[in-house]
């Protein structure tokens, strides 16, 4: 029987990092996610697995430390919350542009600006559309439980290395702070120098040996046609990710006439909304995207013919709804309910809003 431990979502990130053989964490304190680094410091993994844990002087420095570590073929990560992630966006663009694998955790808080420390989902645009400059995407995983926070660290690294692209765990303050039972997974050792050489010698900066040309990690191109060819290569990569890595779950959608789409903590609250509707004989179902990029377009598209309405429920002013509207493409009305600033709605509040949309 696997061990289950009661822990916060933020703590789960830290334990999972050590457990899955992460080589380095570089971070900066910011509410509501400072427990990630605090837990790592308490665990002292440098004494057990040799993992490097370093508090940087800023988020800007953190993401650039991640960049340097990623250049070396190492499993490296950082975590922050909304304003800090904004600071990291330059670095994330560079990581994507240099085709480097890494994991970034965003425990979202209310914005814009300094905002609040209470939870939000206001960084959906930023995270799923890139966030920094240029045409790139992040692989985005949306946890809805402390277990997800734990499991998505290993999954995030797998996907990041599979595609040589940044992966982002887009949690919200609720998931980061709530305490739940988390089942621990079998530990993975940190990769040895030989394993890294085998996996990454074609691109990583691990020391130019006589058997190969020097590796350069850069995102710079002086000629426009070179840069275009690189962008086309990136787009092919994203198409591959969209074809292969979609993850989502459904709740009572088989006979649904109305659909709620919600991610993260909102997906759990909306399960109760489905129950409230069903009690009144309304055939409501829920689709929870687990990957926000790639987005479960085909899954929603397949449901459209049977639906009379879709509602996007988010802790923001309406971001994911735009993606759903694109999928619906005018076939079915797509409505919205959301709260901002950290005001988390109750199932009853959402249900009332839903009823209004179908009257």
């Amino acid at each position, binding site marked *: 029987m696997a061990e289950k431990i009661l822990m916060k979502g933020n703590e789960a990130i830290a334990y999972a990092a050590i457990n899955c053989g992460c*080589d380095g964490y570089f971070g900066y304190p910011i509410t509501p996610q400072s427990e990630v680094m605090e837990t790592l410091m308490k665990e002292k993994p440098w004494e057990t697995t040799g993992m490097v844990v370093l508090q940087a*002087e800023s988020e800007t*420095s953190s993401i650039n*430390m991640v960049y*340097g570590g990623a250049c*070396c073929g*190492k499993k490296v990560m950082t975590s922050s919350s909304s304003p800090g992630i904004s600071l990291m966006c330059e670095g994330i663009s*560079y990581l994507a542009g240099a085709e480097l694998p890494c994991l970034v955790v965003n425990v979202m808080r209310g914005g814009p600006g300094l905002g609040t420390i209470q939870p939000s989902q206001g960084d959906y645009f930023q995270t799923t559309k890139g966030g920094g400059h240029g045409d790139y995407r992040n692989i985005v995983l949306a946890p809805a439980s402390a277990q997800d926070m734990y499991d998505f660290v290993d999954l995030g690294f797998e996907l990041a290395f599979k595609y040589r692209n940044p992966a982002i765990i887009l949690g919200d303050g609720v998931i980061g702070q709530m305490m739940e039972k988390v089942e621990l997974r079998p530990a993975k050792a940190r990769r040895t120098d030989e394993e890294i050489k085998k996996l990454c010698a074609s691109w990583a900066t691990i020391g130019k040996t006589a058997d190969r040309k020097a590796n350069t*990690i850069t995102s*710079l191109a002086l000629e426009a046609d070179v840069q275009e060819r690189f962008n086309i290569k990136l787009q092919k990569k994203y198409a591959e990710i969209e074809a292969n890595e979609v993850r989502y779950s459904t709740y009572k959608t088989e006979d649904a006439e109305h659909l709620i789409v919600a991610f993260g903590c909102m997906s759990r609250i909306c399960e109760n909304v489905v129950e409230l509707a069903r009690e009144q004989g309304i055939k409501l179902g829920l689709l929870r995207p687990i990957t926000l990029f790639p987005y479960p377009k085909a899954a929603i598209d397949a449901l459209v013919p049977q639906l009379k309405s879709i509602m996007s429920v988010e802790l923001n002013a309406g971001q994911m709804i735009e993606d759903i509207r694109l999928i619906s493409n005018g076939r079915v009305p797509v409505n919205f309910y959301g709260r901002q600033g950290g005001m988390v709605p109750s199932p009853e509040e959402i249900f009332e809003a839903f009823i209004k949309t179908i009257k």
Partner: protein
Amino acid sequence: MDIKDIIKPENKVYGKTPLLKDAILHYCPGCSHGTVHKIIAEIIEEMGIQDRTIGISPVGCSVFAYNYLDIDWQQAAHGRAPALATATKRLMPDKYVFTYQGDGDLASIGTAEIMHACNRGENIVVIFINNAIYGMTGGQMVPTTLLGQVTATTPYGRQADLNGYPLKITELIAQLEGTCYVTRQSVQNPAAVRKTKKAIRKAFENSMMKKGTSFVEVVSTCNSGWKIPPVQANKWMEENMFPFYPLGDMKDR
């Protein structure tokens, strides 16, 4: 004696190091970058550490350093090289890790990163090319630009009340406990080149002795930015920059 008798392989006393790739340097004629690149390449060759050295290039004219020195390179965002170097050295402590940064990169946008990497005493080498100007972007003022110096953004000469004072960042860095070797050199004549080579060699050796950060500033010229030809630019540097940025070791633990 006929010249044919002198030019024989056995008589060769100095040539281009194989650690410099075949690519033609894009730098302007007389640019100090080329000389410093050459020095670093010779050191890596002499120490036999090509397979164990990681260079980190900045944004600036020398962003393309990776085209010239035949080692693995990481190209960093503007000012961020010390952060990359921090992670690289901590994750691969058996490698020689150095950053190569200009004055706009290190002393302007990258001030936080260099201060904190040095404050943490990262076991890296920092090569700081100070020519008092942003070269790549067309000759604008940098924090190390001298008072009265004319640049693209100080067309009437730098004024203290508008732009503050030239930043002696190396002196600030020398005060940090985490640094073990802080020195200021130049490359405008053979004696200076040899001193710089000694300094950078010492810095490389330090980085494996867990003594902290070695910081080598090379006061340099920017012929295009200053709009002075190379030989005269070296003279201008000696007459104007050396008095303000004096050469020599500030710290050597």
